[in-house]
């Protein structure tokens, strides 16, 4: 059940991101990119299911004694953390750039900006 919900949420996120990406408004494009990267992050999280812990998959458990709780794949979480930080930085940069484009061109409409820069 969760798998279905997650899958459809992912689908909706990707679709929304792509839709926004194709809009004429620059700000919407940035939103689209943000949503897309968010979708990718969610997708990454879904990869790691809850598994029996072992020192093979989770090396830190080797020094954890006998009783280890069930864990998700920690690697995936680490990856998502990194990816979130990166996409956060990129979004910030894209927003600043959008502001700058607005300052220079006084418009955020892609058709007015023209195709070939």
């Amino acid at each position, binding site marked *: 059940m969760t798998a279905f919900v997650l899958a459809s949420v992912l689908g909706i996120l990707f679709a929304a991101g792509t839709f926004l*990406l194709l809009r004429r408004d*620059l700000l919407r*494009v*940035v939103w689209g*990119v943000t949503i*897309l*990267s968010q*979708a*990718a*992050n969610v*997708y*990454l999280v879904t*990869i790691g299911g809850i598994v029996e812990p072992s020192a093979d998959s989770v*090396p830190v458990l080797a020094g954890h004694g006998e009783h280890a709780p069930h864990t998700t794949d920690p*690697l*995936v979480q680490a*990856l998502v953390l*990194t*990816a979130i930080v*990166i*996409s956060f*930085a*990129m979004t910030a*940069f*894209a927003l600043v*750039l*959008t502001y*700058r*484009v607005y300052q*220079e*061109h006084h418009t955020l409409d892609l058709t007015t*900006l*023209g195709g*070939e*820069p």
Partner: protein
Amino acid sequence: MLVALLSIVATLGTRRRLGTQIALSVAGALAYAGTVLAIVWRVVFSPTASAATYQLGGWPAPFGITLVADALSAFMLSMVAVVGCAALVFSVGYMTPDEQRVFYHPLFHCLLLGVSGAFLTGDLFNLFVWFEVMLLSSYVFVAFYGRKKHTRAAFWYVVLNLVGSVVMLVAIGGLYSVTGTLNMADMARRLADPAAFGIGVEAVVGLSALLFAVFALKAGLVPFQFWVPSAYRAAPLPVTALLAGVTKKVGLYAIVRLYFTVFGATRLSVSIPGVGGDSLLAFYGAVLFALATASVLVGGLGALSAGELEGVFAYSSISQIGFISIPLAIGAASSTPAIHRLAVLAALVYALNHALAKGTLFLAAGTVRSAVGTSRLRDLGGIASRSPALAGVFFVAALALVGIPPLSGFFGKLLVFDVALRAEATFGLALLLGGTGLTIAYTTRVWNRAFWGTQTPAVSASSPNRLQLAVVVALAACIVAVGLGFDPIYRFADAAASAAIDRGAYVDAVGLTGGEGA
């Protein structure tokens, strides 16, 4: 890498005192080159040469982050070192003090850091991270001047690459879930024997195709080429030299590394008309060939119609990337390991030539621009009589691009033709000849318009900057030196190509056992 990182910190710390900052920055670049030289010696030329690995944090290979310096990485790194140093020294003379004052030098080193990280990492996810490090600094450079066309070019560039990053992230995540590892050596080992590890090969094909699209985007192969000209025209010229000469090669490096070393082991029967072979590589051979064909033609024609020096060179680098990919495509499509090796060898030598020649050309364009004040072909003319040295540099680099002996380009072209002949790829051969014709056409056009003919008023009032001229002359000398003393370069590239093909050695170097010798 550590050196580049130190340079970032050092240049950040001294941003108020420009003189110190420049001195530190140049020293950092030289130290970087020295480190690369040490790596090259250690990995390729020393009597006990072997790939060097470093496990970050001391965790053993499949878990920890691995840095691998084998001959392939070393080859790419040495390219970075040469072009990077030249571009940095050049930019000291090219950029105005105001432009250099705050962030230029730290960012430059950040770019170097990202590129070398991407070349050295042995881990798929870290490849993504280093790509981002590299891209983030290049975004800033594309938007550097902050005027109308720059912001617009930067916006395209940023959005495209962000989408590329998302796709890459998805592909990497998928590969992780399919193969259960992110370490490239481990992945190669598992993919060589998919049944034993319970891997569905079909999923790998799809995911690696996604990754392939991303790398083609970074390399600027044709359906993904549209960001190249505007971004290159917008960035400061020394940085463009680095972008065209080196950053693009990261995409190619990733293709070579992943598709020859990692995915190449996967056996899969391909049943596309006109494509034979039982390896994943054969599929990519066909795809890459189509992309390369389009790149050569579009790039060449674009260069013929561009109106500025930078425009010509930007389109020309699209076409040259096509040239570099052709041997890779031919090699991938064939099934004999000997041709694989030769193909990678040809591509590497050609890539080296392109890095040197295109770096020189962009820097020469920078010299023209800062001396004359414009780089529009319409306003140029007679530079040859005004500054013979500059014209000579352009002449040498253009000839290297065309592939005239005894310059470095000749060997690149020779090897590429050799691969095409041996693999009996008739169409590839015809394409190479046609592409070379286009190269001759657009370099001649630039030469006739800008360097010969009567001097325009702007040109006769100009005098090129000494430091800039010295750098481009040194680079041109490099081209000649590579061409004349080609033997060690050949051995180096040969070692790099073997390293790219020899999956078993790569797996062993990382410290995993069970790699099959290829």
